[in-house]
């Protein structure tokens, strides 16, 4: 049966051809030279920004295309949840956009995989335009280079429910600033409400350890070190909160979203958030909105945690000059400043924070909060270790939960978390 054998071969080829396309990553990428003519079609991906800032980005893209005729920017936006998964799928499939919105911990694995353009080489001339600390935030330990343009910075406000503070006999205008004050207020609130109102809905994260003054990594940056005496002390005190129900009983399984809901319903008194949350409170919890207090992050080091957003240029872009020019255009002082006037974020460009917009009082609460945040930002620290992956976060979270439940001592729990994180670090 020669025919059927041929048919079989044809079917096999038909089967295999599309599959072979799935496997190829496509490493026929572009060059690191950004000095050529700025032209071509590029794709720009943001992280959950379309819903609130569509007109701003459309205007920005139109300005760029006007300034550089022959360019076309396609803008895509991805939801907040699952952003890392979307990036990894695109990176593995060879469909990563040309300019990508990243945070330092997302840029690190992409840089390690050779997918992020080294801007120390391709865009060194722009470096003086940015704050030194912000530029350095997208360096990766163990690699030479900077892998994203710094974009906006934020410290993230901490919201609190003034009515719950008053009910517990606490001064609603004096929210806790340090961990000592937080623990004291938390225990008092739990006691006064008979365990019905918790102060926090989340277990401590790596950033909490940083702001408590715990060294997160060893000096060489080769291993984690948050299991020292100070780290154990922080976890021990969190356990006291948990036992007293000052930490929500469901904190061990909480997500950012579920913690937000607890705050909305008045089950917890404090919750970190972003400026966008105010609109949500106004719409979904008017009584909370009337009693909302805004303060800075809790810190015992004098430094709040700085969240850094960046724009990474895909090293495999076919239009390196256009991609670099666009990433710089979005993050230059003028465009960052105009973005900062739309939402409570702060520019990472040198000198921008000295603008009267961030220094001059005009008597409104909004400006007061903005000026305070800009001030704290000047000595803020990015406490999230660049190499602290999702798997490491899960390991820490699980061990913290075991300590809070009393299944392990705080020392054992942190030793185990450090051991797991170190193992994952070594595995690359």
């Amino acid at each position, binding site marked *: 049966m020669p*025919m059927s054998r041929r048919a079989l071969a044809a079917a096999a080829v038909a089967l295999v051809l*599309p599959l072979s396309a799935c496997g190829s990553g496509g490493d026929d990428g572009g060059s690191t030279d950004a000095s050529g003519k700025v032209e071509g079609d590029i794709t720009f991906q943001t992280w959950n920004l379309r819903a609130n800032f569509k007109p701003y980005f459309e205007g920005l893209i139109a300005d760029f295309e006007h300034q550089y005729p022959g360019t076309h920017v396609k803008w895509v936006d991805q939801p907040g949840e699952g952003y*890392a998964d979307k*990036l990894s799928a695109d990176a593995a499939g060879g469909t990563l956009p040309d300019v990508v919105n990243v945070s330092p911990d997302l840029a690190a694995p992409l840089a390690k995989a050779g997918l992020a353009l080294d801007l120390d080489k391709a865009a060194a001339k722009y470096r003086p335009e940015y704050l030194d600390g912000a530029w350095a935030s997208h360096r990766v330990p163990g690699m030479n280079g900077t892998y994203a343009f710094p974009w906006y910075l934020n410290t993230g406000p901490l919201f609190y429910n003034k009515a719950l503070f008053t009910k517990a006999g606490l001064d609603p205008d004096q929210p806790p600033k340090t961990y000592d004050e937080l623990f004291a207020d938390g225990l008092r609130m739990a006691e006064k409400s008979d365990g019905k109102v918790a102060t926090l809905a989340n277990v401590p994260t790596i950033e909490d350890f940083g702001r408590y003054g715990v060294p997160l990594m060893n000096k060489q940056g080769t291993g984690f070190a948050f299991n020292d005496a100070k780290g154990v002390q922080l976890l021990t005190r969190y356990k006291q909160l948990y036992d007293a129900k000052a930490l929500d009983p469901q904190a061990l*399984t909480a997500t950012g979203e579920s913690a937000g809901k607890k705050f909305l319903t008045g*089950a917890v008194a404090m919750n970190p958030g972003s400026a966008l949350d105010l609109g949500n409170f106004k719409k979904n919890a008017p009584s909370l909105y009337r009693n909302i207090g805004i303060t800075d992050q809790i810190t015992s080091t004098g430094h709040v945690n700085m969240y850094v957003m960046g724009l990474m240029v895909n090293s495999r872009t076919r239009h390196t000059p256009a991609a670099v020019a666009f990433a710089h255009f979005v993050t230059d002082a003028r465009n960052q400043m105009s973005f900062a006037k739309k939402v409570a974020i702060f520019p990472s460009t040198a000198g921008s924070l000295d603008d009267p917009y961030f220094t001059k009082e005009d008597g409104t609460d909004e400006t007061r909060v903005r000026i305070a945040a800009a001030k704290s930002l000047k000595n803020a620290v990015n406490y999230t270790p660049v190499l602290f992956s999702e798997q490491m976060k899960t390991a820490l979270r699980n*061990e913290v939960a075991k300590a809070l439940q009393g299944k392990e001592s705080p020392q054992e729990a942190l030793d185990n978390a450090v051991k797991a994180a170190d193992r994952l670090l070594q595995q690359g």
Partner: protein
Amino acid sequence: MAAPLRIKRQLAFSPWLFAAPGLLVVGAFVLYPFVSTLVNSFTDRRTLVPGRFVGLANFRELLHDDMFWTGLRNSALYVLGVVPALVVLPLLLALLVQKHIPGITFFRSAFYTPVVASIVVVGLIWVWLLDERGLVNSLLETVGIGRVGFLSDQWLLLLSAMAVTVWKGLGYYMIIYLAALANVPRELHEAAAVDGAGPVRRFLSVTVPAVRSTMVLVAALSSVAAFKVFSEVYLMAGPGGGPAGEDTTLVMLVQRTGTGLTGRVGYASALSVVVFAVTVALMLLVLRADRGEER
């Protein structure tokens, strides 16, 4: 002579043409991922880093991984908790709605509704109901029992997720049983009734033997689905798998280990291979038990 030959050639080729779309789909979405997973399980591949061949290292590692044993325990408990309920309860439900009385279609539809509802929506509704300040806890507090940590206690969380799985699956298996019950000859029931058998006796001696093969089918289907449970536990216990990850199931562990920019694809593939092996073993066990009883 030429014309018949052409017809013959067309006949030989055409089955493949008809089969090609199906083959392509099966090849791309079943065979290729399966073979790829199998190959990856012997490598240390990560999401963005191509792996090297590491032999059985991943399988050796999972023997020493506490989270693997936690996942295996929870998935096994899920089978033990869910399967008996899904074999028996839908049968009772089917008997209830089998009767031809006015308005019974409404009840049949009502029992089937959870099956067509999105698991995400259903899961979130149950999370609201079972929350520390949810409806169920408010009721329990009103009657003096006090609040119960359905979503904060490791075991209650697992039980709550099982309850949702059973509640959602009842309608589906009820329909399967209804089809089986329609084939049970009415004369058998009538004969048993004439011999003095009551409803319970008739159920045990007539209904159960008549639908036994359907019960085996339901047991096989539900045990495989229960072992591979993901959505219910993920939604109710959170992405971390409950307090300290103690409610993590094997499939959740595969997802958590293998996804993200730093995902360990090789190790997650090894876990998937174990899930596959256990699933096949479960099927064989159920079928073997059935054959054993037949003899």
